[in-house]
């Protein structure tokens, strides 16, 4: 029954120094929507909580040039939705983040928290993977950038060192004719955890797909980038035959578990269904219709 120390530094350096000083027994509080639940359930018992919500860089959205966004790791879904341009450029990412929990949760929950929680079912992660976003992290030895798809390494585990703090996400600029989408399967309509999640990001030139990326969630120990799906989509006109093959590529890379939220066979089937539907939405957005 140890006491918990709570710090809310206003600079990243202070935060890194406190966090790395605790040598793994500290936890970062962004929105807290996973952390507090895990503490109450007795799953974790941190000695130090470092609240990063007061650090400006981690908590702001910047459009560094037209169409290029840097989103602070602890920016809440509701804050991100208030940005006039982000949701127009990355509607799929924004929708994915704001599918999480209730309105109250969405006022706290962030992309950084969702990614660092390490759940294979985190809703925003497949959308971030599809967006080819990168995560900037800072530790005692400085900063580095990691592609989002390389952050999760197992259920509850990330590639961040235990002295590194997630700072911000960088979203690459894309040519006109791009669009993204995220869909998840839940038995209910909200307040649930994805049984399968699928993010799709496309660029079209005329009817030809020139760039594509697909992220799949809750079908493997970590969120997957389905490279085979992208290969099939690129160069195609997103015709029925290609889409069917892409769905098959998604199903083929599934390695899910049977659990209370879904069966192996159900999850596998659904990944293909969501791929088809998400491609259709992303393509529509890319065409601006």
């Amino acid at each position, binding site marked *: 029954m140890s006491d918990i120390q709570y710090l809310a530094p206003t600079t990243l350096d202070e935060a890194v120094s406190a966090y790395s000083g605790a040598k793994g027994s500290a936890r970062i509080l962004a929105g807290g929507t996973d952390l507090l639940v895990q503490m109450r359930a007795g799953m974790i018992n941190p000695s130090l909580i470092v609240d990063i919500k007061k650090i400006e860089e981690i908590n702001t959205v910047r459009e560094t040039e037209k169409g290029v966004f840097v989103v602070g790791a602890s920016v809440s879904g509701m804050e991100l939705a208030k940005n006039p341009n982000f949701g127009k450029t990355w509607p799929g990412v924004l929708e994915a983040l704001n599918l999480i929990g209730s309105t109250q949760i969405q006022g706290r929950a962030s992309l950084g928290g969702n990614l660092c929680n390490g759940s294979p079912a985190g809703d925003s992660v497949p959308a971030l993977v599809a967006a080819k976003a990168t995560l900037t992290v800072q530790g005692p030895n400085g900063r580095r950038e990691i592609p989002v798809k390389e952050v999760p390494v197992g259920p509850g585990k990330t590639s961040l060192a235990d002295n590194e703090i997630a700072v911000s996400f960088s979203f690459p600029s894309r040519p006109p004719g791009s669009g993204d989408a995220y869909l998840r*399967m839940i038995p209910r309509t909200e307040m649930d955890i994805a049984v399968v999640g699928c993010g799709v990001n496309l660029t079209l030139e005329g009817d030809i797909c020139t760039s594509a990326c697909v992220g799949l969630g809750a079908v493997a120990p970590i969120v997957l980038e389905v490279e085979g799906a992208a290969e099939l989509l690129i160069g195609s006109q997103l015709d029925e035959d290609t889409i069917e093959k892409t769905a098959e590529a998604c199903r083929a890379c599934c390695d899910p578990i049977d659990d209370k939220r879904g069966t192996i066979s*159900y999850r596998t089937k659904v990944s293909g*269904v969501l791929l088809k539907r998400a491609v259709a939405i992303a393509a529509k957005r890319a065409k601006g219709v």
Partner: protein
Amino acid sequence: MNDANNKWIGKRTIRPDGADKVTGQATFGADTTMPGMIWGKVLRSPHAHANIRSIDTSKAESLPGVKAVITSADVTNYSPEKSVILGIQDMRWMTRNVMAREKALFHGHPVAAVAATSQKIADQACKLIEVDYEVLPWVVEIDDAIKSDAPILHEFIEFEGKPSNIAGTLEHKKGDVQTGFEEADVIVERSFTTRPVHQGYIEPHACLVSVSADGRATIWSSSQGQFMVRAMTSMLTDIPQSSIRAIPAEIGGGFGGKTIVYLEPLATILSKKSGRPVKMVMSREEVMRASGPTSGSKSTVKMGIKKDGSIVAAQGTYYLQAGALPGSPIRGAVGCAFAPYDIPNVHALGYDVVSNRSKVAAYRAPGAPIGAFAVECVIDEISEAIGMDPLEVRLKNAAKEGTQAAHGPVYPRIGYYETVEAALSHPHREIPLGKFQGRGVASGFWFNAGGESSSQVNITEDGNVVVTTGHPDIGGSRASIANITAELLGIDYKRVSVLIGDTATIGYSNLTGGSRVLFASGMAVTDSTEKVIVSLKERAAKIWDIDPEAVDWEDGYARPAGANAGMFDPLSLEELAERATETGGPIGAGSQLNTAGAEGGFATHMCDVEVDIDLGIVRIIRYTSFQDVGRAVHPSYVEGQLQGGAAQGIGWALNEEYIYDSEGRVDNPGFLDYRMPVCSDLPMLDTVMIEVPNPKHPQGVRGVGEVPLVPPLAAIRNAIYDALGIRFYGLPMSPPVVLEALEQGEAAE
């Protein structure tokens, strides 16, 4: 009282508890605190089935901050050999449910409890209690529990001469089914399963108990009956009822699940032992693991119909899970299953099956939804087989006044026929359906209950009214009772205040359950109010010096009548209250009744679904309930009951289920993975209230709270058939199940 000129009965008055609830001022079970209060915590079995060889509490007791530790040795024992009935419960099972005695019977079964100065210390103390378990083979599902080589939970339970997990049976017979089936043109026999589902009340069980130095206990708790809390706590602690005061909190939902105690007796014993007030609050996980859901079931129903649509014979066999101790609601299943119909030959048989899961508790028309699910599905199939509309089949066979029900009674005037008629002529039925959309119907019955209720109606010195009754208000009884009292007295609704008394301030009142409260307390309050009116007339007569018979009570005034009409100015309630001292003292009257005549309730539901055939998701797109509500004293609350039942039925049908892991533990003990519907899952749930007044009630009231959960399961299942051409025989019809059935259907084609 049943006419359209009513001023308050039938009006949507503002609920008296509304302001407190929306501003957070209402006091629920966990909201009461006391100086010196400490925290109680239950240690629960980590095993699904185990003999308890010994329990060593010494280490826990010596932990600083721990004030008391108890085990079953501290709880009053009742021998398993002899039943000790209290209401619908048996105390020999109740004592074993609140605290494991010889055996831990399910994962989460209480085995000890502690009270300590903080929740953390209480948690830590629980970990220091050493229980020596002999782990036993366990059984959760019905089919496994009734196998000949199944692990036996209770050696003292015998069936057909040997130890068994079948703890009891119930049978209803009418006519001769054999002969009946011979007359049938079409016979359909089908088997069904349903899963246990939890009542899903938002407020977990919670209480605060203070036992004084002279042994008097005061209990603040959230329950469906403060008198039930008092009686059960008394019987489990040996404190006489006169020394227990049970004070009801506002209740955050019960649906039957709070008709028994879990924490109150333990907190009482802990408080007595520690000399401190003890508070206990269950976590959601504890609620899901260890409080009563309703039964899972398996059933087989066979029905025979003639080509002209008359059902000639019906047979149903039901196995219901009781949980770890006997007492599943087989009465509701076998009694309600065929009750909406006038069928000459009926045979219904139920089995009560124990297994290693938490003991079931009442859930909204206990057993009846299980009974109706199978019957209403088979009716859909026999209707199709003879080419008749399923509503027309129901209309043709509808039970009416004079019908002898298989479960015993001859019906008085009932409104089942009217619910089917209303469904047949409702615009919902004409709305065109699209691809993968379907429409289904089903009906249902619930007994409804009367029983004991007390009330006190007092006129305040300023001429207003305070009414006290004895049941927790779950479904709007305070507003409804205020409507009735205002109507009878002919005064404004706002002048009537309705309170829920505690066990020391109002006479015995049976619990809030069985859809009985407005029926019974409405009768008691009517009786009290009529006595008050007699007294008011006598006082006016005294003032005017005329015969009391010559005084009328009208619109809140005493008026001289007959030969004296117009001789004196009318006297208002305020004036009579002001002159109470000179006319005989305080004005008020109490009533204590054992009410009878709560006749059955009937409903027919119509449901439209749409299926996402790629994902297997069933969405409810339209829903209308048609119910005979007797008299809607407060229509908004009645509609709320109809909608609430439909919503719970939708959850039961589509997604709710307990998932067990390989160790016999509930794997989804929380609302995230125990998938009750959320608001956005539901369309507007429409209601059609049909008022066929109950002839045996002064306001025509019939219970309305439970019937609404009886028809939905089959209505939804029949709608899915209409949409997909696939008939499901088990619940829930969740996305993986539906998708698999769709694929099998495709494969078969």
